[in-house]
């Protein structure tokens, strides 16, 4: 009976309802000593799990050269201006964050001594404060010590609007203060269920104050250290040619014992994905290549008897279709697809649910993406606790036909269904990318069998994904009936990702189509659930709220999710990189090793 009550208390601590101190008090009442009670908390996983990296080498160095091939070449090495993944990967070699995300979405300390938790006093009970303890005896590449001042400076640097840092959103609303040389405290204006954004992973790479101090704000471009990074990372820069190559040598003073294993590191950029795969898997000229956007069949053929293999990590990115419920052909106040309009046929839920049944996700996975994606009916898929358990997908042409029959859409002489003179003819747009065009064709074929005619349109990626206000073909304009693309979920937490479902983010002319809600559809319940989730500190309740937002959009079939994309990389057979879907490829480069 006692243990049951104790368990209840532990759960309360876990959820943040009970502070660690009150737990200890209560536990002593049960006759437990404080250390034992502490152990109990740790045992129950209140401190985040820290899985071992499996690192084998017993001394640093001696591993020879490591050669990495990125088929898009890094162009800059300041992590706070690194827009593309290529630049984030490159700058993470030199700069480190307080913590990074492993493959399971766990936080792993890097420049932090430990991950803040309620147990170690790092997280305040009200969810507004996070205290980070920094790792002692960490040195910058130039020998100067790493301290709390650098952390504070990084926050100021990124928060300054004149710097125009890409990471600014993580720092703009927080207060960071120095407690002592190795402790910093973040204060949020309101409770933050997801607090691991500032100083964590891609957004959190710490800059040395003594190199960037004079280059905050408008002068940020002029910092010499933008091209000659001095970080704390496992490798030091030797030479950097933007758009071509980065050469590095081992950092002999690295703060993790026995790491890194490799003596030199070369990161070569340029070319295309397929030949990068060839250079790693087939000829072994390189040891590692990222982002293998190559047909899985081809990769499998290369792997047979090759010198390398393909590794896959789950991620939160989703390839999905938006069904436009507003009218793309009517202009209201200078914009088409305005929320003031209604799509003649797609605003009918029956039509949308029919289209959902006409998407053959299994075939798309099997024949097009292979290991690059997993068929899904849910908009959010990872981490698993945020995935909807109720959403299921089905490919059923007969059922789709029946739904359309019941809804009163009759086939005309040309085989295309219509009702009240409105035909089921849609423009289906996406970016130019071979797998996407194949997807379009598969969906078009199925729709044809149900009397829906799709006109396929593909737009150059550089136009489709641009924010050019004057261009009608950008994805946020949604001047089409359906569109398909991948949207990225950068953190292992879907809150920010799901702002694509809230009414105040609807893309329109007023916000220059920069709003995150591209579908333009909104639902009061979803809005409320989202707002509640932003404040909810109980992880389970919060997950339930976010799942609700996801389910509302998927059940309305405004979102038609296709595949949860995975990260596919190529590595030499004897190389053991730590791949994760939640951070950049080089997040734990120090722990890569060769056998």
């Amino acid at each position, binding site marked *: 009976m006692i243990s049951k009550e104790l368990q209840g208390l532990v759960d309360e601590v876990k959820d943040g309802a009970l502070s660690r101190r009150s737990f200890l008090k209560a536990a002593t009442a049960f006759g437990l000593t404080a250390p034992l009670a502490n152990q109990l908390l740790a045992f129950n996983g209140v401190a985040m799990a820290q899985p071992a990296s499996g690192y084998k080498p017993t001394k640093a160095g001696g591993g020879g050269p490591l050669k990495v091939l990125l088929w898009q070449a890094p162009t800059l090495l300041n992590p706070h201006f690194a*827009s593309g993944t290529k630049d984030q990967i490159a700058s993470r070699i030199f700069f480190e964050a307080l913590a990074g995300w492993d493959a399971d979405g766990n936080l792993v300390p890097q420049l932090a001594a430990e991950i803040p938790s309620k147990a170690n006093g790092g997280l305040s009970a009200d969810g507004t404060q996070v205290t980070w303890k920094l790792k002692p005896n960490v040195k910058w590449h130039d020998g100067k010590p790493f301290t709390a001042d650098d952390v504070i400076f990084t926050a100021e640097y990124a928060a300054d609007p004149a710097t125009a840092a890409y990471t600014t959103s993580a720092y703009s609303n927080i207060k960071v203060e120095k407690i002592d040389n190795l402790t910093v405290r973040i204060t949020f204006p309101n409770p933050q269920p997801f607090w691991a954004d500032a100083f964590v992973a891609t957004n959190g790479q710490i800059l040395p104050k003594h190199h960037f101090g004079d280059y905050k704000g408008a002068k940020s471009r002029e910092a010499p250290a933008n091209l000659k990074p001095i970080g704390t990372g496992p490798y030091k820069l030797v030479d950097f040619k933007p758009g071509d190559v980065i050469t590095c040598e081992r950092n002999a003073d690295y703060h993790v014992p026995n790491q890194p294993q490799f003596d030199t590191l070369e990161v070569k950029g*340029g070319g295309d994905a397929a*030949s990068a795969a060839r250079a790693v898997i087939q000829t072994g*000229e390189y040891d590692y290549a990222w982002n293998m956007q190559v047909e899985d069949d081809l990769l499998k053929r290369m792997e047979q008897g090759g010198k390398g293999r393909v590794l896959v990590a789950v991620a939160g990115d989703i390839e999905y279709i938006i069904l436009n419920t507003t009218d793309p052909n009517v202009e209201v106040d200078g914009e088409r697809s305005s929320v003031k309009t209604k799509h003649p046929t797609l605003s009918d839920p029956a039509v949308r649910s029919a289209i959902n049944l006409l998407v053959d996700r299994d075939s798309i996975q099997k024949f097009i993406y292979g290991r690059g994606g997993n068929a899904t009916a849910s908009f959010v898929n990872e981490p698993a606790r945020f995935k909807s358990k109720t959403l299921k997908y089905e490919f059923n042409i007969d059922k789709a036909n029946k739904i359309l029959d019941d809804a009163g859409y009759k086939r005309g002489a040309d085989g295309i269904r219509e009702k009240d003179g409105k035909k089921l003819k849609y423009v289906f747009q996406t970016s130019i990318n071979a797998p996407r065009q194949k997807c379009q064709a598969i969906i078009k074929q199925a729709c044809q069998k149900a009397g829906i005619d799709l006109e396929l349109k593909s737009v150059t990626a550089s136009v489709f*994904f641009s*924010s050019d206000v004057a261009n009608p073909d950008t994805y946020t304009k949604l001047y089409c009936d359906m569109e398909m*693309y991948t949207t990225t979920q950068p953190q292992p937490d879907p809150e920010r990702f799901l702002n694509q479902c809230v009414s105040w983010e609807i893309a329109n002319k007023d916000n220059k189509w920069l709003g995150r809600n591209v579908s333009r559809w909104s639902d009061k319940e979803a809005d409320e659930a989202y707002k509640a989730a932003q404040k909810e500190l109980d992880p389970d309740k919060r997950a339930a709220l976010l799942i609700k937002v996801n389910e509302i959009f998927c059940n309305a079939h405004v979102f038609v999710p296709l595949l949860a994309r995975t990260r596919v990389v190529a590595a030499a057979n004897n190389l053991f990189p730590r791949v994760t879907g939640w951070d950049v490829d080089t997040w734990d480069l120090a722990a890569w090793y060769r056998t």
Partner: protein
Amino acid sequence: MSAARNLLHGVDGPRRALHRSRVPEETAVLNYLIRRLLLAIPSLLGISVILFVVLALAPGDPFEELATNPNVPPEVREALRTKFGLNDPIMVRYFRWLFAMVQGDWGFSFASRINVDTLIWQRVPTTLFVVGSSQLLALAIALPVGIYAATRPYSIFDQIANTLAFVGFSLPTFFTGLLLILIFSVSLDWLPFVYRSDIAATGWRWYWENLRQAIMPITVLGLFQAASYTRYVRSAVLDVIQLDYVTTARAKGLSERAVTLRHVTRNALIPVVTLVALQMPAVFGGAIVTEQIFRIPGIGSLLISAILANDTPVIMAVTFVFSCLVVLFNLIADLLYGWLDPRISFG
């Protein structure tokens, strides 16, 4: 390119100058040079306006990657656009660019945020080495083959050379490049197919490694260029070889070798020299496709990645430098023409 050259000749081209009254030769050349250089200014201005406007009108945004990233608030993108002056009218942007360019400031790359001239200078040596060597290789093949084929027209050698030349310039470099990679890298594993600008070795090993990685791209480019040069050399030599003075030389009892080399080739190569001079800007401009296939960090790959990233300052600088070189080498070609062919004067 020949169209551009004709355009630049205008009405005052060298051919018309033949009929002018006699002026001391040196002053004439100097006058001609000054006139051409002055003429180059408006044409370069015109080129720059066209380039700038086309780039400004082209769709795309250098900060497009930020658009799909939920972590980057739209305000950052807007702030950057304002900071880099992308929201100003085209005219303002053009004159800002022009004044900076005149003062030697080429601007900075939006993608890497470093100065464009630094970026270009990093790439020039590699491009000069690879494309320059391929031009040398092309000439080394085309001259002997073209001349030999022309002295024996319609012989078996000529037929074979012609066929090969035809095949050579019909096959695009991306095809021959991939073919060579497939044979020499993937199947035989003899040569690397990723070009590295940072070879760690020193001394002879460094030269050897550099040569090894450059063999395939140089061959691909060289053979392609050789094919068109060969046909050009052959027809130029064929034109000259039928002239009366060649017959006279033969009649004087000169050896076939002396006739071919001293009498025929010298005159036949005048147009070829012009052609080669006009190819020189390409040595700077690099080879976009081949550089991409072999990952050569040259000007061509800089240009293509800048285009893909909508990095306007880099595109503008590379294309503008390229057009300057085209104008310059047109002028050099014309001067060379006059120097090689005394019948032409610059009066």
